[in-house]
């Protein structure tokens, strides 16, 4: 369970998020939509403190994951990021073999011995629906895979450390339609085990994969509700305008 309370976020003097509060239930898929530059990616990166890496930024407010404020001083960021996985916009496998890519998180977190790692890699690749395509070339470089396969490899890499939450930042924006539909199918299957938050600029995608949707604009959370309701019967006029394509 993720709970954000009154979050403000600044890049230098520019306020990118304005007083955002939101609750996300476990084992659901939540989509963030909105025009580019609206703050949806910034908000996503609040959940695993990825924004810490950007210089000259500032955050106010609280973000609780399972009741714990992840911005508390006592929090170990590495453990947090292990528990909150992330898949990025562009597939970014490491210059290592397919196997080593998936094993990476296990190794850096000292999880398990050799046989355990082998087993987890296989499970994760199966969960990411990639196993059948790569099982004969696990030692080949990850760069030999197609773009869509690389992205599923990155998902497998995130799954391997058994996070409870997976953040996806426009995971299909760099992919072709067939690869995209595979990723979407995958998200659907993963929902049983993980809490998934996905940022997308593609409203149809949000409608297809998510249970709840948050609509962001100019750093504000305009509307946050059940996806069906949002797309069929939005409360706010701005939402209505965006969904029907009047701006964006």
């Amino acid at each position, binding site marked *: 369970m993720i709970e954000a309370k009154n979050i403000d976020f600044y890049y230098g003097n520019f306020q990118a998020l304005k007083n955002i509060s939101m609750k996300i239930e476990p084992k659901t898929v939540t989509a963030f939509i909105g025009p580019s530059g609206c703050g949806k990616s910034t908000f996503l990166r609040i959940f695993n403190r990825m924004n810490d890496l950007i210089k000259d930024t500032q955050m106010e407010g609280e973000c609780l994951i399972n009741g714990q404020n992840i911005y508390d001083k006592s929090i*170990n960021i*590495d453990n947090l990021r292990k528990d909150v996985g992330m898949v990025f916009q562009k597939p970014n496998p490491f210059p290592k073999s397919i196997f080593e890519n998936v094993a990476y998180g296990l190794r*850096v*977190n*000292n999880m398990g011995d050799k046989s355990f790692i082998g087993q987890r890699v296989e499970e994760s690749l199966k969960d990411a629906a990639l196993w059948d395509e790569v099982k004969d070339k696990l030692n080949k470089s990850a760069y030999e895979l197609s773009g869509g396969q690389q992205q599923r490899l990155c998902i497998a890499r995130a799954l391997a450390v058994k996070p409870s939450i997976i953040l996806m930042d426009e995971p299909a924006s760099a992919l072709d339609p067939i690869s995209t539909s595979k990723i979407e199918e995958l998200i659907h299957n993963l929902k049983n085990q993980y809490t998934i938050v996905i940022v997308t600029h593609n409203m149809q995608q949000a409608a297809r994969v998510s249970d709840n949707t948050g609509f962001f604009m100019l750093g504000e959370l305009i509307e946050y509700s059940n996806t069906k309701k949002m797309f069929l019967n939005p409360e706010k006029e701005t939402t209505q305008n965006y969904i029907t394509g009047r701006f964006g």
Partner: protein
Amino acid sequence: MNKKVSQNIAFFIFKFFGVLVIGILFSIIGFIGYNGIQVISWEFLTEFPKEGMTSGGIFPAIVGTFYLVVGSLIFAFPLGVMSAIYTTEYAGKGWIVRIIRIMTNNLASIPSIVFGLFGMALFVNKLNFGDSILAGSLTLGLLVLPLIIRTSEEALLAVPQSYREGSLALGATKLQTIRRIVLPAAFGNIITGLILSIGRVSGETAPILFTVAAYFLPKLPSGIFDQAMALPYHLYVLATSGTDLEASRPMAYGTALVLILIVLIMNLIASFFRKKL
């Protein structure tokens, strides 16, 4: 929290290394600066060495180094810039440029003593210039050529393509475009290379050992076929083979400081030119 601990240790070490390297630099400059500043005076800069190089000044070495800097750059600077113009403006992107670039890198990596050998064989012996400012300048010129080529290339590549297109579209020839548009735009950065070369040439010893440098001369050189004293060689002599090493130590500190100051000032001027762009 094992991995956190190893991170802290590693980062501490790297930071320490950083401080250490800066410390080394400052200890060298500080040591030579402290000892040298007590020696440097107007007399030190304008007088000849006296009493077996244990007192007096380093004037002839300063003059010699000045001649060598001017002599080497008169010949290397235009050639280097021309070579850079050829590779950036004419040669395109094919294998020719690749070979030229590899050769330039190779030339840059050849040890300075090898240039000394070559200069001695070709200029001093074969062409019969003898130990002379001419032979030394040519040798030093070859040595700094790669530096000039590389900085000039970077300078020319930094000129936006749109400048060239704008000029060509007005009916200017390629050569006119280079002369009137490209070179003026790249001027500041090309000058940076020239200034860095001055620092480099002033400090090199090995190439001049057998081509020009004299242990001691009672008068200033009067032509390009004369031998000359030079600052770096003078420091070498003072440090290792003077008549009384202990007594000439202060002279050595002063000479070393002058050398460091030349490099320091050239670096400062170069960064000034670089910033202006």
